[in-house]
């Protein structure tokens, strides 16, 4: 319904949205960009220094480590979530008894905060007192699971904790996608004598592409935003072994009083997000034009 006559009320009504979008989102992002081009320390300064902050950023060992950690984490987290979530969805879809109960069990971790998740898994993976202690008590002496205190293994513990939390969500989304598949396809496949696992991999999985795209988008943004779980579980440690970009930025904003450097980090963090959004926005605008 096109309304050429100017109506006051709708425009006034979306004023809050306009304010938020322009000031809080656009404005803040642009301001951060501006700060990243200055020599700000504790407070924003007006001293433009061009791309020097970015230079310092990429010379910063902690930052480079955080990027490396994030990349490693990202691949493992997304891969594991997709695999586990998909398998869970497929198995639940087999008309098992107690389906509702299983779904409830797999999805409840998603209702917990990242902080709670991080804290519990920190406890579970504590060497000696945690799970490895219990396993030893069961009669397997010499079992020691101390990844959480080992510099080169600690990121994997974060993967475990966050995969535990997020797989249920992936399962729920995949299940909804699976259930949207035309049931007659199953019947046709049965008539053709195709075994179930083949139907899943060759027929259903390609049909699930939109769902998978959604899940990928969600998981990828969650990866970039990873913060709470790291703070709760390892505080970035041992040392700086589990540092991630968001924590780097937060620490430099509020603890180490280097607003310029932190802002540069924030802008750099924006790049993968925009890279993800761009093809997606393009695909949607193409769909709407069609």
């Amino acid at each position, binding site marked *: 319904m096109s309304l050429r006559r100017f109506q006051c009320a709708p425009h006034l009504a979306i004023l809050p949205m306009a304010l938020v979008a322009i000031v809080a989102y656009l404005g803040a992002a642009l301001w*951060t960009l501006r700060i990243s081009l200055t020599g700000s320390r504790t407070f924003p300064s007006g001293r433009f220094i061009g791309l020097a902050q970015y230079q310092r950023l990429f010379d910063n060992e902690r930052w480079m480590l955080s990027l490396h950690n994030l990349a490693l984490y990202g691949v493992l987290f997304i891969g594991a979530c997709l695999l586990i979530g998909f398998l869970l969805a497929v198995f639940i879809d087999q008309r098992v008894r107690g389906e509702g109960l299983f779904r409830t069990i797999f999805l409840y971790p998603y209702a917990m905060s990242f902080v709670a998740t991080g804290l519990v898994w920190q406890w579970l993976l504590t060497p000696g007192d945690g799970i490895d202690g219990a396993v030893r008590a069961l009669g397997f002496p010499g079992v020691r699971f101390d990844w959480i205190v080992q510099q080169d293994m600690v990121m994997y513990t974060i993967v475990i904790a966050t995969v535990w939390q997020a797989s249920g969500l992936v399962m729920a989304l995949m299940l909804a996608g699976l259930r949207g598949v035309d049931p007659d396809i199953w019947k046709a496949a049965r008539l053709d004598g195709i075994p179930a696992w083949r139907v899943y991999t060759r027929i259903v999985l390609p049909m699930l592409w939109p769902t998978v795209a959604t899940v990928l988008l969600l998981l990828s943004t969650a990866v970039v935003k990873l913060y709470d779980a790291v703070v709760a579980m390892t505080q970035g440690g041992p040392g700086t072994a589990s540092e991630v970009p968001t924590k780097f930025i*937060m620490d430099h904003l509020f603890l180490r009083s280097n607003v310029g450097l932190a802002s540069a980090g924030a802008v750099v963090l924006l790049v993968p997000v925009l890279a993800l959004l761009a093809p997606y926005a393009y695909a949607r605008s193409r769909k709407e034009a069609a």
Partner: protein
Amino acid sequence: MTPPIAQPVIESMMEQPPPLPLRLPPPARARQRSRRRRLTPARIGIYAFLLMAAAFFLLPLYVMIVTSFKPMDEIRQGGILALPHAFTLAPWRQAWSGVCTGAACEGIRGGFWNSVWITLPSTILPILIGAVNGYALSFWRPRGARLLFGILLAGAFVPVQVMIYPLVRVMALAGIFGSLPAIVLVHLVFAMPVMTLLFRNYYAGLPDELFQAARIDGGGFWRIFLQVMLPMSLPIIVVAAIMQVTGVWNDYILGLVFAGRDNLPMTVELNNVINTTTGTRQYNVNMAATILTALLPLALYFLSGRWFVRGIAAGAVKG
């Protein structure tokens, strides 16, 4: 907390009923046959996998609960998986009213009430504004609204750190930094994309002719919203409320930065309790405190079930 949006498939997912089996129930004869379904190795494998997965998922919850009822010496003796021998409620009492969160040692109950006072307005306000936004976007389409909405959606995917410092400066300049209004305002800002999306999709699913009939009847913007659309919005309001309560209660970073020392939410205090105490760690108290913090959203989840899932399918995902 900024929830990223699940835009792809959102519209189609909204149309889908909550994940209940779409297949028609088999005719009576076939149903009998399936009940006497043979336990093939494949079926056994399926159940085995699902049960193992269930164990993995339930493990932390079990350990949390079990640890919180044990006295410390039992924990020190090891056996994280063992049931408590000397069942005790002391850790709970300690967690609620005794642990030290920073300066004070009043327990985590202060954080509980802070979270309540933060969550209530941070749920009601975004729902109201999201509803009006969604309604305006869906039926009236004022100039520039689509662009604004696009900015909001893009912003929802962006990490909070990109916007947090300017917001801090603005709040400080306005003199409200570190107060309840500040944290509520911040939650409103970061909830707006998802809330608007939820309501816009919902109203887009309502028949346009309803709106046209109301226009012919002479209804204006607000009258149609308040007397026709809002009364019809109960399902989506419930979903939005569940998503928002969960998201705000579980938020950590925004509360940490904006709430101010007097209003720290439960999650922040929990982290303070566990990760900043010196001396021996009281695991049982820690676990009790963790359960207390996670209790509200978990209870909401277990009680609301179907609505929670509907919220996920509608694209509101916490990030």
